[in-house]
């Protein structure tokens, strides 16, 4: 069990460095932790695993061929047989190739076996709209994975959470999908130096307020805080929640906040239809219906594949302006 964070000496790292530290620390601590993925021994396309093959050897930091489906299955089988694998899928867009092994096998083996099998597997994927990479390298599929009983799904927004959640994920005996937003890779943050872990299933209140709640996911946390600042200058008190964990989702924190503010906006980079926002909206109106002064508003990407051209891409991503617009709508809204 990881100790909760204490006030230790803090140091600054980027989100990417935080991930690398988490991997290295867990690999040092537990010799059954193995890394699999395309080019992981060479550091990966963004350098997340740089240096790990040097320290732990290429038998523990294993380069795989371009066979996402089978590699996912292999990692699952290795987990069942007693290792603690961390498999990297280079872009979440490619997780489509591993859907059968992830959805039909990894997620279900524990249940189908009546508890006989354990699958202590961590799946690292990177997502996000940035760099004009187009529709096959920019998607966000956390909603699909949240929909699969048996998986846990995490989306940290800060270096501290990236490190803490990844360590917790690796130590968890269940298949956990750890989604990294590559637009956040070079953001910096302070991280405690001790062996801190962040619990799965707990959202984080980044800013307290009592007039409107903004629930944000991953890359949208920054714009949400920026919007909150602007609203605050206009005399509006905003509560900002970083979801961090989409499966399980922290219903309690979201609902308590709604009961306090009576207005809530959800913002994520993925497409709206059947996205995480839908689940949050459904849950909020279920549990806090009589506290709501206005509908739950969802800010998300348009319902279209992501365009590649830079100007189109920039117009596509939700940001501070859309959040402000929604907030004003929510605050201006009156029931009968």
């Amino acid at each position, binding site marked *: *069990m990881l100790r909760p964070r204490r006030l230790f000496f803090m140091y600054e790292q980027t989100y990417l460095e935080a991930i690398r530290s988490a991997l290295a620390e867990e690999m040092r601590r537990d010799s059954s932790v*193995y890394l699999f993925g395309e080019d992981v021994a060479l550091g990966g396309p963004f350098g997340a695993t740089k240096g790990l093959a040097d320290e732990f050897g290429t*038998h523990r930091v294993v380069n*795989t*061929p371009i*066979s996402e*489906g*089978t*590699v*996912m*299955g*292999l*990692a*699952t*089988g*290795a*987990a*069942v*047989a*007693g*290792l603690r*694998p961390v498999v990297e899928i280079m872009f979440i867009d490619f997780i489509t190739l591993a859907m*059968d*092994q992830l959805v*039909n*096998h990894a997620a279900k*083996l*524990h*249940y*189908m*076996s*009546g*508890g*006989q*099998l*354990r*699958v*202590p597997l961590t799946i690292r994927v990177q997502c996000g709209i940035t760099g004009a990479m187009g529709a096959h390298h920019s998607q966000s599929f956390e909603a699909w994975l949240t929909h699969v*009983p*048996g998986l*846990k799904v995490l989306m940290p927004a800060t270096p501290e959470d990236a490190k803490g959640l990844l360590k917790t994920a690796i*130590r*968890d*005996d*269940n298949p956990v999908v750890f989604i990294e937003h590559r637009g956040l890779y070079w953001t910096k943050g302070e991280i405690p130096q001790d062996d801190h872990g962040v619990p799965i299933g707990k959202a984080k209140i980044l800013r307290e307020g009592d007039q409107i709640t903004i629930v944000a996911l991953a890359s949208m946390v920054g714009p949400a805080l920026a919007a909150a600042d602007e609203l605050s200058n206009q005399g509006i008190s905003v509560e900002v929640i970083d979801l961090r964990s989409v499966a399980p989702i922290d219903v309690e924190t979201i609902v308590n906040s709604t009961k306090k503010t009576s207005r809530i906006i959800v913002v994520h980079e993925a497409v709206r239809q059947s996205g995480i926002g839908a689940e949050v909206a459904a849950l909020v109106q279920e549990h806090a219906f009589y506290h709501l002064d206005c509908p739950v508003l969802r800010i998300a990407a348009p319902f279209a594949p992501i365009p590649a051209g830079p100007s189109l891409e920039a117009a596509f991503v939700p940001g501070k302006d859309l959040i402000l617009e929604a907030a004003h709508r929510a605050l201006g809204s009156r029931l009968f």
Partner: protein
Amino acid sequence: MILRKEKASEVLDLFRRMWLIRAFEEKASVLYAERQIAGLLHLSIGQEAIAVGACSLLHQDDYVFGGHRSHGHAIATGADINKLMAELAGRATGYCGGNGGSMHIVAKETGFITASGIVGGTIPLALGAAFAAKERKKGQLAVVFFGDGAGQAGAFHESLNIASLWQLPVIFVCENNGYAEFTPLSAHTKIERLAQHAKTYAIVASTVDGNDLFAVRAAMARAIKNCRNDKGPAFVECLTHRLRGHYEGDPAKYRELSQLATWKKQDPIARVERTLRKKKLATSQKLKAVEAQARALVEKAADFALSSPWPSPEAVDHAVYAEAK
């Protein structure tokens, strides 16, 4: 042809195990017709020599993976037929508490790691277990059973490639019964001997008469030696025939009756019996007693299953997530 090393008692044990599978499958068929077993049921009647031939040479800590037709594989690893029958009947006393059923059997205690309802779904899993085995350096290996239909799955080819590339201690046992669901193999592929695929990926491969227990054992013995000596994966293709349809309820009109008649003559159990008689390794009486005993054990298993309680609805969300140990 019996390996010189095999003693009469050993062969008799194998014979018993084959009969246990046969009796179990036939009883399952009856229970299915009586609607005591739900969903889809895929029987391996006629393919007993492969399960028994392959698993009888394994160690307790080897990893065995099956497909959707895996009752025989589980029984061949020594699984408890009471818990197995209870699982088919969806009862709380089943191996998986009723969660898995026929296509998703797990008998971890005897090394039968899992079956799967997805064609080819367990092949990558077996690779993972082999990887872990190789790291542990204790000589463990993984075995995965699949049919000729799996030869068309992408995962099959990816797995052969990776197993060969990384020299994983995994044995691919292909039960080529000539039919993938309702279609003859020739309508699915130009490559009708799957061992050829293995050779393409530089994996040592052989094709044997899957209805000859001793031929299967001999091929497996070679494959196992390969794996345990860190010489990489092996592929054993066993030619056989399933005497029933793809699943219970499949009238199998696609199969010619004459074909069925030929294969019945090649019945693997009958062949072992003929061998035992010819070599005077067991009396007629003893051989008949084996069948009777198998059926008696299976009857007991059926009684156990049908008198077991159903899982309670409160249990429906247990075992979704594993708690920390």
